[in-house]
């Protein structure tokens, strides 16, 4: 169940911390000692700190260069990507409706089923979907005037349709005939305490798969 990355994470984190701690202690010692080879010691201790700040600087420069490019990419392509995804979804939906003979998802609890049920089990699927920054900008401008914010509505419904379609595909892969009591949860990825984080919604769809006996 645990991925291998989780085991490696703790030693790496402790290594980083110990390097930082070591450099801090060594710096303090060097400041006290003031010996002749202090430039060398100072370099040794400041090295890791310098490297880290260099990393931040490089990241900042790359961010400043690439952000406008990616933003422009979003301006040009986010609408057409959304449209392409929606038309893809229609095709996939049609394929799974062909497979089941009907739309397998329902919010009924199974009281309507006449024949016996052989087997049941949980099915779930999720997707994290985000609007582009360009779409967020449009939404912000729309918010000033109030009323319907169509662009965000479309993004979220695309995410929801994707989650439902994945649920159908999961049910198909697990060999269920029908999915009952489907619930669709929508959760925000970004906590309210951190409003500048990644803007995305998570759509999670789950239900009970059944096999007719």
């Amino acid at each position, binding site marked *: 169940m645990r991925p291998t990355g989780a085991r490696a994470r703790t030693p790496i984190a402790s290594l980083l911390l110990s390097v930082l701690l070591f450099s801090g202690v060594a710096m303090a010692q060097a400041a006290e000692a003031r010996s002749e080879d202090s430039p060398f010691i100072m370099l040794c201790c400041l090295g890791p700190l310098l490297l880290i700040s260099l990393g931040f600087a490089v990241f900042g420069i790359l961010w400043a260069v690439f952000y406008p490019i990616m933003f422009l990419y979003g301006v040009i392509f986010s609408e057409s990507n959304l449209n392409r995804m929606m038309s893809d979804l229609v095709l996939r939906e049609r394929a799974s409706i062909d497979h089941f003979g009907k739309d397998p998802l329902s919010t009924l609890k199974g009281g309507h089923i006449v024949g016996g049920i052989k087997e*049941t089990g*949980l099915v779930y*699927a999720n997707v*994290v979907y985000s609007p582009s920054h360009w779409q967020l900008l449009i939404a912000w401008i729309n918010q000033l005037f109030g009323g319907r914010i169509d662009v965000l509505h479309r993004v979220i419904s695309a995410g929801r349709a994707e989650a439902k379609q*994945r649920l159908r595909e999961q049910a198909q*892969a697990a060999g269920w005939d029908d999915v009952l009591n489907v619930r669709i949860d929508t959760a925000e990825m970004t906590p309210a305490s951190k409003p500048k984080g990644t803007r995305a919604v998570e759509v999670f769809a789950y239900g009970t*798969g059944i096999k007719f006996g």
Partner: protein
Amino acid sequence: MSPAPIMQHIRDGIMVVNTETIAGKVITQNLGVVGGSTVRAKHVGKDIFAGLKNIVGGELKAYTELLEESRTEAIARMVADAAARGANAIVNVRFATSSVAGGASELFAYGTAVTVE
């Protein structure tokens, strides 16, 4: 995106459904609410990449994967809890999500452990 978690439950001999009853079976004993939760995060690289992908919009695969893994783990813990109580089914399963910090999320799965015949 594989049906592996479902197979896992069948191997444990515990049926997990989100309906109130299991069709064709009778609930004989109620063993109380069982739950499993997990808090997980992706490493910083994936977070940064997700932040970049966010500019363009669309699906953030790293986070989809993260939540999928977490949920599977939460369900596995819930099933282990139910197995420890001697249940053979969990009915009326619900999920709850809360984000503790940016990029880390808590997934909670809960349901009623029962024995069915």
